[in-house]
């Protein structure tokens, strides 16, 4: 009988029910969209933040004791100890290998230009965009073009496979009057080696120290200096999750974590746990997280998520108030029916149950439709802000439906107290 009444009464006052359902749909779609984006925003932001450059630096372990005073590096081993170029491929064999978005090795050697008064210029060797093999036959394209998208070249990028092409840093090019297409002869400044004839393919702007150097394919820097197969450092761009309490604790060292915390930390893509795993994979290297990048990722993601929570709460309150006013009208309109139920012997809770069940049903229907609308909205937001779709997590559906039902119930709860105050004698005789 209860279900029959619920079914029959649900289709009464359709316009009001439609309004209430629309209110819930609006709130649910907003909450679904924000929740979907909120879950995905860590990944999205992480990829966005990659455009600001690498977040890990790999250096030889013996160089890992910083000795920098007033901006001058006094480390006597600086540039004198090396990593093996072939070891770098091991980065793609760690637990989080899929999160290694790219890396670029660096070998900076002093060089001199023949002619031009024998100007001394640093020559930086790196990968521009090179296909490297790892773990057998798998291939992966990496280099500064992949990890530092903000590097700009006026002209062409050199070919990684050739040793006769270089980029001239913008400052150096200005100083020496270099332009794309110029031919230079370069030789190693510290020992007499064979000079190399190179062509400047473009002028490089990075906003960093590379602007005062010639930037060449790694093979050229290795050949000119005789450091075959060696690199001094590597910048690594890893997709990481924002820092939290656990990762901050882990900064004090993996020993500060108990076994459970260690497992959780190791199996989460924190910048620190990826650094730890890189050191495990390449024992001769020390991985230094660039905390500014890692921390700003966390801060931005946290702020976005906080904003979403605030908007969600606002949507919750607004739709709750909407439902509330609709419920007051419904109860006043159906006061005779309520009075009759009471006169026939219905207890207050039985009347409550009918009205709250109707609200819950409105919440359920609104929540389900809102989920669909919200999923679409999330894709639109994803496309317009991040330029890619947002992955939809099925958990959002039950969570949202429950939230929608709660909104409908919360909005109905206060007005439904009017039911208690309706006296059948008054409403049945038309006095209210």
């Amino acid at each position, binding site marked *: 009988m209860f279900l029959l*009444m619920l079914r029959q009464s649900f289709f009464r006052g359709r316009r009001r029910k439609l309004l209430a359902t629309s209110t819930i749909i609006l709130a649910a779609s907003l909450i679904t969209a924000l929740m979907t984006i909120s879950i995905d925003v860590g990944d999205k932001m992480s990829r966005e933040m990659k455009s600001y450059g690498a977040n890990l630096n790999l250096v030889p372990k013996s160089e890992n004791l910083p000795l920098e005073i007033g901006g001058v590096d006094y480390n006597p081993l600086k540039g004198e100890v090396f990593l093996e170029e072939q070891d770098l491929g091991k980065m793609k064999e760690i637990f989080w290998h899929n999160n290694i978005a790219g890396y670029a090795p660096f070998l900076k050697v002093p060089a001199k230009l023949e002619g031009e008064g024998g100007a001394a210029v640093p020559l930086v060797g790196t990968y521009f965009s090179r296909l490297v093999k790892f773990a057998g036959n798998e291939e992966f394209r990496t280099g500064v073009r992949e990890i530092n998208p903000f590097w700009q070249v006026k002209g062409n990028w050199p070919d990684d496979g050739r040793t006769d092409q270089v980029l001239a840093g913008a400052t150096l090019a200005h100083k020496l009057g270099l332009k794309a297409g110029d031919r230079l002869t370069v030789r190693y400044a510290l020992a007499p080696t064979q000079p190399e004839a190179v062509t400047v393919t473009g002028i490089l702007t990075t906003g960093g120290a590379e602007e005062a150097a010639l930037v060449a394919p790694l093979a050229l820097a290795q050949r000119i200096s005789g450091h075959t197969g060696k690199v001094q450092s590597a910048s690594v761009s890893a997709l990481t999750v924002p820092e939290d309490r656990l990762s901050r604790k882990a900064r004090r060292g993996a020993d500060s974590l108990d076994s459970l915390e260690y497992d959780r930390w190791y199996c989460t893509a924190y910048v620190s746990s990826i650094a730890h795993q890189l050191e495990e994979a390449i024992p001769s290297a020390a991985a230094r997280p660039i905390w500014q990048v890692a921390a700003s990722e966390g801060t931005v993601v946290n702020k976005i998520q906080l904003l979403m929570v605030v908007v969600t709460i606002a949507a919750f309150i607004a739709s709750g108030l909407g439902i509330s006013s609709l419920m007051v009208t419904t109860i006043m309109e159906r006061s005779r029916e309520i009075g009759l139920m009471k006169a*026939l*012997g219905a207890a207050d809770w039985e009347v409550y149950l009918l009205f709250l069940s109707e609200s819950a049903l409105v919440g359920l229907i609104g929540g389900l439709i809102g989920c669909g609308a919200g999923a679409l909205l999330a894709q639109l937001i994803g496309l317009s802000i991040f330029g890619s779709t947002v992955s939809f997590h099925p958990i959002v559906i039950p969570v949202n439906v429950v939230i929608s039902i709660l909104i409908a119930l919360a909005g109905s709860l206060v007005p439904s107290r009017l039911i208690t105050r309706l006296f059948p*004698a008054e409403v*049945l*005789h038309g006095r209210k």
Partner: protein
Amino acid sequence: MQKIVLETVGLTKRFGNVTPLDGIDMQVREGEWVAIMGPSGSGKTTMLNILSCLDTLSEGKYILDGIDTSQVSEKERVVVRREKIGLVFQQFHLVPYLTALENVMLAQYYHGMIDRDDAIEVLNRVGLSHRYDHLPSQLSGGEQQRVCIARALINQPAIILADEPTGNLDESNEQIILDFFKELHAEGRTIVLVTHNPELAEFADRTVRLHHGKVVQHAA
């Protein structure tokens, strides 16, 4: 001598300075049909509200089928209402989105046990065997009142309380309803009926006349 089903002793109701009912003493025995009459403002409706446990009294006692309702809580009064009383309203008060049959079953539902066959039987009795599945809006006034009477009868109440049951009906329907009341009375049902209509009161065993909240006449 039949047992007393309904008894009021010094029943008084006050709203601030107004006293619509002032020390009413009344007894209704099992199987008796009592009509309460009086001009507008005499306290008839207030009296019926208290007798049907829809309202509380300010002073005195109201004993229904052995239960002193002036001493029970609101929750217990709800139970008394659904167990002991069958209500017939002037304006019928049917749930608009339930059919005739469902309206009768609603009273069963609040009473605790639904029996569709019983509900159909009662509707047959009031001559609505062909109208079970009609909504109140599809029924005439007389038919709606018959559904209302069927609903009042379905739980075998100790007493039927009717408020101007023919007040909204035309003559032919009034006669049908009157015949029902006669039939119910002949079956031995206890009926208390509030009315303006002297013709309706004529068939009652007794008439209680109210004036300014006081009983002015008990007439057989």
